[in-house]
Structure formats: structure tokens, C-alpha cells
């Protein structure tokens, strides 16, 4: 499972192109042998190669066009559909067509934001607090745990690892969780939803950190200990800075997951004051059932932060998701 991880590192793009050209070069190599034996063959070989290339070029162009075309239709039109309809008036949007709006109703966005006493703003604030809070706690706790679980191999860490792995597969039990939260008197609090998001994302995050610790040589720590470094300073000053690349992955993956989370806030953070950004959409589904322009404007408001994130960190996100998934 983890084997692909390391092999992948050397430049991904060049690998792809070399696989395509490799067949061409090897056939060239075999044809070179033939050329040596009879000079007469040279011309025909060359000719054949040329025509082959031309044919390949045409095929490629066709593949490019078809590929890009269908990707645009299948993966872009839904977003375009939402965007144009979010800018129409109520009647126009309810036709649900892909036509451009007759007049651009930018006011829709303002109206959505104002709805229910600026619910969207509250929700954005809540979502941001939950996301930032949970990610920060996750980075601190999971990096420490991953560090120890990789470096120290004994009964305790083996057990800890086994328990953590359960969390990768099993969904959280809803009502017993509420029961625990009520017992602790923290139900419906910002603190409880942050801790829940931390708990739910802990297994995956520890796994990422533990996997990355594998690649960090022990020598640094050994010489640090000889110089009299304390256990805590060893981690904060030497190990943690080395974990930077995987910390970036952890931040992006968890931020996307937690920001997009719908189920956990629905159960564990109920109430209008506690709305999160995904829940506004759910609330508006009833309220705006006959004005799709408003509903779609809210969808766009939700999608835009992710789009910005994607445009900036495109490569990092894709790599991080693969690393996470392949490890999982």
C-alpha cells in the first residue's frame, strides 16, 4: 500500500511522457539493428516511422479534443449551470436552463447573505472557527502521537495503533456520542464540535505523520540526545520542523474535510446560532424551495473558498489526497 508513495516522488510529469515515448525509442532501437544488416531497408524504415508518427499525431489530436470536450461537458457544465442561474431573477432561474441571464442580478448574493439575520456570515464564522481550531489541535496532537508511534515499538504503541485503525473504518455512533457530550455538559458548544472533528480525523492524521516519520533518519535525534537535548525540545526544535511537508498535507486535507462536513455539525452542533456553512444550504432548501436563484447563490458562496484554495494549491492538494488515500 505504501510502496507507491516513494516511487512517485521523482517528477510525475516526465514519467508520463517518457512512458509514451518509450515504445517509440525501443522500436527505433530494434529497427537500428535491421538497418545495419541491409542498407536498402533504411529508406523504407524511415518512411514507415514517419507515417506512423503522423497517424499517431492525428489520433492524439482527436483524443485531446474528445477528452477535453467530454471533460468540459461532464465536469464543468454542472458548475456553470449553478453560476448562471444564481445570477438570474426568480422566474428565470426556475426555468433551470443553461442560457445566460438576461440581466445580471448580483443582488441575489447580497440577499442570500442578509437572509435570516445574516445567517451566512454567522455560519462562515462558525465554520472558520471549527476548521482552524480543529486543524491546529490535530497538528499538535497527531504529530506528537505519530512521532512516538513510529519511533517506539512496544506493546502500548501496538495497541494504540490497533485502536486508531478502527477509527479509519467505523463511523461514529451518533446518539451515544451525544450522550457522552451531555454527560460532560459540553453538548452544542464550539469546544465539543472542535474536539469531535479532532477525534474523527485523528486516525487518518496520525497515519500520515507516522508514515512520514519513517523517512526521517534516526541519526539527528541520536546526536541531539548526546548533546543533552530534552525530550520536549527534541520534538519541538528538531523533529517537528522536519515534518513540514506532511504538515502541509495535513492542513489542506483536514481543512477541506472539516469545512465540507455536514453530518457532524448536523448532529452535534444544532441550533440556528450554531449554523455552519454546509447547514445554511440545508436550511435554505426548505425556505427557498421555489427560488432557485437564491439557493444556487448560496451554493456558489460555498464553492468559492474551495475554488480559490484549489487554484492556489492545486498540485499540493492532488498529491496530498493521493498520499492520504494510498496510505488509508
Amino acid at each position, binding site marked *: 500500500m505504501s*510502496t*507507491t508513495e516513494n516511487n*512517485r516522488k521523482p517528477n510525475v510529469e516526465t514519467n508520463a511522457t517518457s*512512458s509514451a515515448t*518509450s*515504445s517509440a525509442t525501443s522500436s527505433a532501437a*530494434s529497427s537500428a539493428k535491421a538497418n545495419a544488416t541491409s542498407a536498402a531497408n533504411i529508406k523504407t524504415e524511415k518512411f514507415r516511422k514517419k507515417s506512423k508518427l503522423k497517424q499517431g499525431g492525428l489520433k492524439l489530436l482527436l483524443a*485531446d479534443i474528445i*477528452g*477535453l470536450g467530454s471533460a468540459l461537458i461532464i*465536469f*464543468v457544465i*454542472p458548475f456553470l*449551470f449553478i453560476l448562471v442561474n444564481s445570477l438570474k431573477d426568480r422566474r428565470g432561474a426556475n426555468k*433551470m*436552463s*443553461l442560457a445566460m441571464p438576461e440581466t445580471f442580478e448580483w443582488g441575489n448574493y447580497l440577499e442570500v447573505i442578509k437572509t435570516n439575520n445574516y445567517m451566512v456570515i454567522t455560519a462562515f464564522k462558525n465554520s472558520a472557527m471549527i476548521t482552524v481550531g480543529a486543524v491546529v489541535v490535530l497538528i499538535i*496532537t497527531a504529530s*506528537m502521537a505519530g*512521532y*512516538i508511534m513510529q*519511533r*517506539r515499538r*512496544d506493546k502500548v504503541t501496538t495497541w494504540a495503533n490497533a*485502536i486508531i485503525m478502527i*477509527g479509519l*473504518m467505523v*463511523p*461514529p*455512533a*451518533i*446518539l*451515544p*456520542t451525544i*450522550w*457522552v457530550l*451531555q454527560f460532560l455538559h459540553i453538548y452544542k458548544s464550539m469546544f465539543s464540535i472542535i*474536539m469531535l472533528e*479532532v477525534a*474523527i480525523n*485523528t486516525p487518518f492524521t496520525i497515519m500520515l505523520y507516522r508514515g512520514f516519520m519513517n523517512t526521517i533518519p534516526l541519526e539527528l535525534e541520536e546526536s541531539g*540526545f548526546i548533546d543533552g537535548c530534552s525530550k520536549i525540545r527534541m520534538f519541538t526544535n528538531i523533529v517537528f520542523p522536519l515534518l513540514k511537508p506532511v504538515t502541509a498535507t495535513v492542513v489542506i486535507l483536514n481543512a477541506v474535510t472539516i*469545512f*465540507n462536513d*455536514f453530518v457532524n455539525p448536523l*448532529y452535534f452542533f444544532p441550533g440556528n446560532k450554531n449554523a455552519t456553512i*454546509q447547514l445554511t444550504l*440545508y436550511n435554505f432548501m426548505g425556505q427557498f424551495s421555489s427560488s432557485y436563484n437564491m439557493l*444556487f447563490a448560496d*451554493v456558489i458562496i*460555498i464553492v468559492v473558498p*474551495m*475554488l480559490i484554495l*484549489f487554484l492556489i494549491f492545486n498540485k499540493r*492538494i*492532488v498529491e496530498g*489526497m*493521493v498520499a492520504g*488515500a*494510498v496510505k488509508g
Partner: protein
Amino acid sequence: MDKKKYSLWFLAPSMIIFFVMFIVPTVSSFYFSLTVWNFDSIKFTGLDNFKMFFSESHLNIGIKNTLIYAVLTSGLKVILAFLLAIFLTSAIRTKTMIRSLVFFPNLVSTIAIGLTFKAMMHPTKGLINSALGLIGLPNIDWLGNTDLALYSIILTDVWKGLSIATVIYIAGIQSIDKTYYEAASIDGASGWHKLLHITLPLSRPSRNSVLILSFIGGIRTFDMIWAMTGGGPGFATDVLASIVYKQYAAGFYGLSTAGNVIMLILIALLAFPLQRYLYKREEA
């Protein structure tokens, strides 16, 4: 020596949070599933909740639908993503662009995508039916037809999940040693043969990841169902997770917890052995 250098205290914060917020509820769910309870009182009823779950048609349809959902979404993703990954690792020049387009849905929340497709699947005005109308096909009631609704949701789920599956495959295919292809070319293997005898078997680790990830995701699915149909029409698209929510909202806490436990058992009985089996074959 090691024990002195690597203090177990470092494990404590993570473990405490995980234990209190996850392990305690999970373990206690087994007990709560055997009771009729709310936050004030509790009455032990044995296996009554489970008997009810299996005998009532509006409850056991959730088990059936969950299995259909998990099997079909993971199966479709494994096949389609493989084909897409082959295409996107070929020599075409627009592949970076296509990859970005395919990948983006993965970042958008399921609830937003579910809502978008619900609008596009509108029986009379929806975009999909309009497109079908252009080539002379009749309108289809994607989400209103009890026989079809679940499959419409499954297709939407595949649309969203294809991205990550494809990216995993691409990483796997690119990590295959190029010398295999070169050796095969020298022996005169055609592109088709190389695909069948090199790419297909050697991309097995990625295939296993995709399969396990989407199977577990399928058993746990909730957002997509909730955004698109809310379990309807009738109970036609109810899955375990949506039944857990409905029973919770109706105040039947015991039944709701039993739904959670059944989900856990399904994962333990199906996903866990599946993973074991796949990785054993991978090592062999």
C-alpha cells in the same frame, strides 16, 4: 534506552480525545442498541431493536440499499477511474487540464453537489432531461421513480468520487517500472497486450485502495442521499445512515443506535475481510 527517549506522554493528548469522543461512544453503542432509551430513562429490551430492524420493511430496505450503494459505487469507480487514468497517462497534451477538471468536484461539499444534481435531474425542466430531449429521448423521472432514484444518486456519487479514484490510479500507473514496457515492446507486444499484462496487474495496489475506500464510503453514505431525496420517494432511497437520522429525529433512540451498530457490523463483516483478502493477494 528507547523508552527513555520516547515518552508515552506524547501519545496522551491524541489518545484521550480519541478515547472520550470516539471509543467510548462506539463501545457503549452496543449496549444502547439493546435498549429503549432517551437521555432520562433507559429500559433493557434485548434484541428487540434488531428484530424490528430486520422485519419492518421501511427499516430493512436501508440495509439492502446500503449494500447496493456500496457495491455499485465502488465497482463503477474502480472500472471508470481505471479507464480514465489510462487515458490521462497517455501522450495526450491536455491531460493536466483534464485532470484539474476531473479533480475539482472532490473539493466541493457533497451537499452542494447533491443539490446541483437534484436540480439537473428535475423531471420536467432539468438539464439532463433537456439534453436527452435533444436526441429524441423521453423525459425520465430520475429521482421520483422509486425503482430508479437510488441509481440516480449512485451515478451522482460516482461523478463526485471518480476524481480521487482516478488520481490514485494515475499515481499507481506512473510508479510502474518503465523497463517492463520497454521489454514488452522489444518482444513485439501491442499496446493492448501491454495494458492487459503489465498495467492491469501492476496497478493492483491502487485498485485495492480505490475499492476499499469507496466501499467503506458507500456503507457510510448520508450527505448525498439527504441532499437529493431525503430517503424518498417513500423509503425507496433510505440507507442505514439516513434511517439512523430519521429514528433519532423521531425520538426512537434505541432503533437509531441499532442502525449504527448494524453499520459497524457490516463494515466488520465485509470491508475488513475484503481488505485482508486484497492485501494478502497483493503481497503474494
